[in-house]
Structures are given as structure tokens and as C-alpha cells.
């Protein structure tokens, strides 16, 4: 499952809005987290227990260490792209056929179809590679102050959402993500351009734990 990622582990998320060789990068599935995650998976109620989680486990997430997404996310994205590609191929093939039929030139088909095949093949190859590339350039960091997400291969952005500005959070899971037990964390702020910040490709339990950590604890910020 994580075959795509194993090859990419050499890579390093050096997104450099912050100082480049930060050195605090760690993989998601480090020993400590592995244990905690599995322990939690044995528990029956995962979602509800997260809110009553003692601060010790919550802080294990909020250690200010930059982490990468779950490697299974690469696979999920590849499947997503594959579905997209199939749809695109069907539509464009129909288009090619229509053009061919409309032109009434037999030779044109001999030219168009290989062209179509080449374009589609190139796109497929790119889409097959892209998830792993983007995975290498995506990381997140949770600490006491809030959540920080770094992403983007060419245009690299680092987004910092302070905990005190979070209005509410979502943890969502699509059918494919459920199959791989992944989830997306969506953080809502009162901002306009970043009123919702999405972090996809987290392990579901980790997404929930981050959510539990980010939830406002002090009720004192009522105006």
C-alpha cells in the first residue's frame, strides 16, 4: 500500500518560507505515534474518547514537530486521479470520434487517435507521479499555539492558523478515505480568504486527535 511512499522517503519537505534546513522533520509513523495509534484503534469508541483524552496524549500531537501526511494518501489520490482520467478519456475519445466522423477524412483518424493516446498517456503518467511529488512537499505541524500547514510543489505556501482563531473544526472522510482509514481535517476561521483551511490525508485517528487538541479549551474568549 505504501509502496509509492517508500521510494519517496528519501525526499524531504524543504518548503522554505521558514528557515530551510529546519531539521525537525519527522515521519508521521514514528514509533511513539505508532503505538498510540494502534492502542486507540483497539479501543471501541474512537471519536468520543478523543474529547476526554488526557492531556498527555493530546500533547504528543502538539509537539511542534513537522510531520508528513499518511503515505496511504498517495494511493488514495492516485485512485482519485485514475477515476478522473477515465472520465476524461471517455469524453475526449468521444470528441475525437466526432471530429473524425465530421471531417469525413479517413486518414485524419490515423493521426488523431495516436495523438490522443499520447496526450492521455502523458497525462496519466503525470497524474500517477504527482501524488508522490506533492506528498513530499506537504507537511504539517501542531503545537500549543496552533496548526501550521506547508504545501505546494512550485508555489509553496505556509499557512498558520492560531488556535485562538479557530471557530470550529470538521473531521470528514470520503468513501475512498474510509477504505484506507484516512480523514480530512477542516479548520474554520473568521477570515475571508482562509475562512476554511483543509488538511487532507491524515490518518483518521490522528485527524481526530489534532481536532481534540485544537478545540478551544478556555471558554474565556467569549466577547
Amino acid at each position: 500500500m505504501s509502496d509509492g511512499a517508500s521510494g519517496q522517503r528519501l525526499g524531504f519537505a524543504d518548503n522554505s518560507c521558514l528557515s530551510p534546513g529546519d531539521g525537525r522533520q519527522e515521519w508521521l509513523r514514528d514509533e511513539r505515534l505508532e503505538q498510540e495509534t494502534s492502542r486507540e484503534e483497539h479501543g471501541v469508541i474512537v471519536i468520543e474518547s478523543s474529547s476526554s483524552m488526557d492531556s498527555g496524549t493530546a500533547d504528543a500531537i502538539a509537539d511542534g514537530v513537522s510531520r508528513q501526511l499518511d503515505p496511504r494518501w498517495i494511493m488514495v489520490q492516485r485512485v482519485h486521479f485514475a477515476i478522473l482520467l477515465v472520465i476524461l478519456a471517455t469524453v475526449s475519445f468521444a470528441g475525437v470520434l466526432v471530429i473524425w466522423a465530421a471531417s469525413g477524412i479517413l486518414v485524419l483518424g490515423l493521426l488523431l487517435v495516436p495523438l490522443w493516446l499520447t496526450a492521455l498517456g502523458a497525462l496519466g503518467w503525470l497524474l500517477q507521479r504527482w501524488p508522490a511529488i506533492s506528498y513530499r512537499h506537504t507537511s504539517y505541524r501542531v503545537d500549543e499555539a496552533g496548526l501550521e500547514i506547508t504545501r505546494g510543489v512550485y508555489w509553496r505556501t505556509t499557512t498558520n492558523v492560531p488556535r485562538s482563531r479557530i471557530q470550529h473544526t470538521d473531521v470528514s472522510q470520503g468513501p475512498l478515505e474510509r477504505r484506507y482509514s484516512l480523514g480530512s481535517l477542516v479548520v474554520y476561521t473568521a477570515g475571508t480568504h482562509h475562512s476554511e483551511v483543509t488538511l487532507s490525508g491524515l490518518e483518521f485517528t490522528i485527524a481526530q486527535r489534532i481536532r481534540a487538541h485544537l478545540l478551544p479549551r478556555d471558554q474565556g474568549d467569549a466577547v
Partner: protein
Amino acid sequence: MPSDHRLHPSSIVFALAGSLRAFLVPAVVLILTSGRSSSQPSDPGWGPTRWMNRWMPGDFEIANWQFWILLFLIPTTIAALVRYFTFRVRYEGTELVISSGILFRNERHVPYARIQNLDAVRNIVHRLLGVAEVRVETGGGQAPEATISVLHETVFEEMRRRIFAGRTEVVAEEPRVSTERELEPVRSAEREGGQTLLYLPLRELLLNGLLENRGMVLVAAAYGVLWEAGLFRSVWEQLTSGAYAPGFLRDTIVTVAGGRVPSAGRVGVLLVGVVGLLLLVRLLSMAWSFLRLYEFRLTRVGDDLRTEYGLLTRVTTTVPLKRVQSLTVRESPLQRLVTRMSVRVETAGGHGSHHDKESKQAREWLAPIIRRSAVPALVSEVLPGFDLDSVAWQSLHPRAFRRAIKPALLLAFIIAGPFVFWFGWIGLFVLGITVPVFVTLAWSHVYRTHWALRQGSGQAAGEDALVFRSGWLWRQTTIVPSTKIQVVGCIESPFDRRAAMAGVRVDTAGSMSPVHRISIPYLAREDAAMLYERLAAQTAQTAFRW
């Protein structure tokens, strides 16, 4: 209950008028386009109209469209009646409670403390009847939390007083030390111990109209309406009595393009026309400014900013000082000539409510026009302790202009390229225009673009603020207190990376199209990282208070 308020009876009329207005444009077009034919009573009508006309007394006949309008009015009428009879506003402790509906009963509780702003709009009919349309906005949601149309003025006054009092109760009343200012006689605000921050006399209003080119909007609107009604041609023909058809301008252009010199008369008419149009536009703009901003007064009542203005439609807006998300000072080239500026604030109320754009824009005008020398005082009033003059501006990367000019030149060549290719020498002429224009744009993008991070000392950590200014011709300076920063972002494009630069963006709660978005480009990477880290830290330390 003594504190139970209901709508003013005239609200039914206003609801009907509102829905009639929706029919107005189609009806006018219908009447105009059908022209003569509608004057003939031979139209027999069909269906229900025919049946109804049998019962109509005398010559009166209902045309089809009249019937359909009446039919469409029935649901509106019922809704308005239901609304009138069930709508209640009451005050419960620190909450505003609005209830309405028969079948679907709805009760909305709005805590005073969450109210972002309280606006009242009174057009001329409202004022004759002594009523007001009231808008209550909180931070969330698309539309105002409550649009109450219409309340009696005294009810609105009481609502404002209660909401205001309910808030100061919590804050614990502190005696305001009023600085020495000329206090002009103010009506309601004065009675509540308000302090006038800005009053616009007639001269400033006209000046504002002259500087702000609003007239073009009116001309465009008039043109649109005329076009819509299909009247344009006939109006034009009447105006020019057929001598100069719309082809006049085209003819002249064709003559010039053909290498011939147009007759002096033609040139004269054209010049007079252009100058006249420009004058007309400015005059319209001044009239607009006069009508819209008549008796503009900005007052500070306790911790609220209150603006009142308008000749026909009187608008009253209230923005709590704490709710100011950001403040922007703008200066257009014309304004600079006469040392004026304009100041706007952003509030978080009513995100993206397009239908309500008018009142939202209105609220954001803290000062449509203000002397440059008075700006620092106003700014320090809105953001206590902020001194605009003593900001330590930081520059962008020294090579910022060299970066900015590359895409500008590229764009200029891309635009001019096809012209050069097809027209040769004329294309070079186009290139001669696009290159300077884009170079100027690049220059104005970078020149005078500065940022500053103000750090409050010690216990005044809540007064940290990010200041960002940009623009060469149209200059804007925006101040965001770090308590109002929502999200801090750092962005690095491939080109940035090559030049070891980065940009920093800051997101605040405000309107969907911020006047001046804080996006600082072309920073040295270390500066960007430092700014980002410090902003993130400052923001995380402070709690966001709407």
C-alpha cells in the same frame, strides 16, 4: 410586556412597495414598448381578466399585466400581514429576542455582545412617517442577522440605547477624558455624550464629489436604463434633432483613419461634447456626494463609532470600536493635490451580502474625505495609542523592482506582439504605449510598498499591529491589530525561490472583497520568515475578540 415592540403599521405598505419595485422595470418596458397599442381599449383580454372586467364598473378595464401583478402581490401581502401581526422584538437581559411567524415560529436570540453593528436606513418616505429600517449584524452568516423593516424611530432609539447600555455594563463604565475639540451641536449623539470626530461641511462634500468620480456611475446607469427601454435611439434623435446620428463619431473616426482631416466644425462639436460630458460627470458626482453624504457626521459615543449622513435617505450606522477589523487610509492622486485622504474601516458583519452592499459600503466610510493633517488624530481615536506618523517603515527586497518589471514587460510584449506581427509600424506604436504603462504598474506595485510591525510594550501586547502601505498613484495604508489577524500565510513562488525572496499574507475577518488586501510581496526570505514567525507568535498569544 412593556419592553415588547412590534413593527410599525406602515411596514405592510413598505413590503408591498418593495415587491412592486420588482415589477417596475418590466412594467415600464412593457408600457414603453407596447407604445400606442396599449392606448386602444380593444384588447379583449383572456382568461381571468376577461371574467373580472365584466364586473368592473364603467370604462375601467384591467389589462393582463395588471392582473398578473395583482396576483403576484397576494402572497407578498399575506406575508407582510403575517409578519406585521406576529413580529415582536423584546429585550431579555443582555439579549435581543426577535420572534416571528405563525406556522413556523421562529425566535432568534442575539446577545448584545455579539452584535457587530447596528444600522438604520431612513429614506424620504421613512422619514415622513418617522420610521426606520434597522439592520442588526453579527459576525457570522451571509445576511444581516435581522433586517427589521420598519420600526418606529423611538423604538430604534431605544434598541440602540439598550444594546449600547447592555454592552457598557459588561465593560464597566469608565469616565472618558474628552480631549479638547470644537463640539458642534449634535442631535442624538450629543445627547448621549458623543464627541464629534468629523463633520463634513458643504464645501468638503462638493470637493469629495469632485474628487471621487461617481458621476460616471450615474451616467452609466442612465445609459443602461435608456438602453434597456430601447429608448436610446429616439432620445438621441430628439437631442440632436436628427442632425448627428450615432454614426457621427464613427464617421469622424473613419475620416481620421482614412488619413483625411475632418472638418473644423466636426472637431469642434466633438471637443465640446467631450468636455461637456466630463463637466456633466463631475457635476453629477458632486450632486451625488451632496445627496448621499449631506450632513455627514462621525461621532464617538462611548466605545462606539457612529456615522449619520444623507439628505433624502438618512443613514445611521453604529460600529463598536472593538469590532474594527482593520483600518485603511486611502489617497488618490486628485486627493493628494488638495491634501485630502479618505479613511475606511472593515467590520466582520454580513459577509458577502451582495444585496446589502450599499449599506455595507456606507458603514465602512469612516471619513469619505478628511484633511491629511487630521488623519493621525482620527486613526489614534479608532486604534488607541496608534501613531501613524511614527511608523518605522521597512522596505521590500532591494531587487524587488527588478523582479516586478519582468512579468510586466513580458505582458506588455505579449499584448503588443500580435499588433507588431500584423500591422508592423502601428504595432510598434502600441508597444510604445504598453511598455510604459506596464512599467509604471510594476513601479507602483513596488515603490512605496512598505510594511511595519508595531510591538506594544509590556502589558500593551494587545496593541501590536501590522501596518502595510502600497501604491504609488493610489496610495493605501492599512493597519491591522494583531488581535484581529486570523490566518498568517507565507508564499513562495518558483521565481521567489530563485531570488531568495518570499511573500507574507495576512487574512482578517472583513468583507469578501477587502479594499486593500494585506499581501506583502518580494520580501527577503529572512525578513519574510521573521515577519511570519513574529506575526504567528503575536496572533497566537492574543485572543480574538470579534
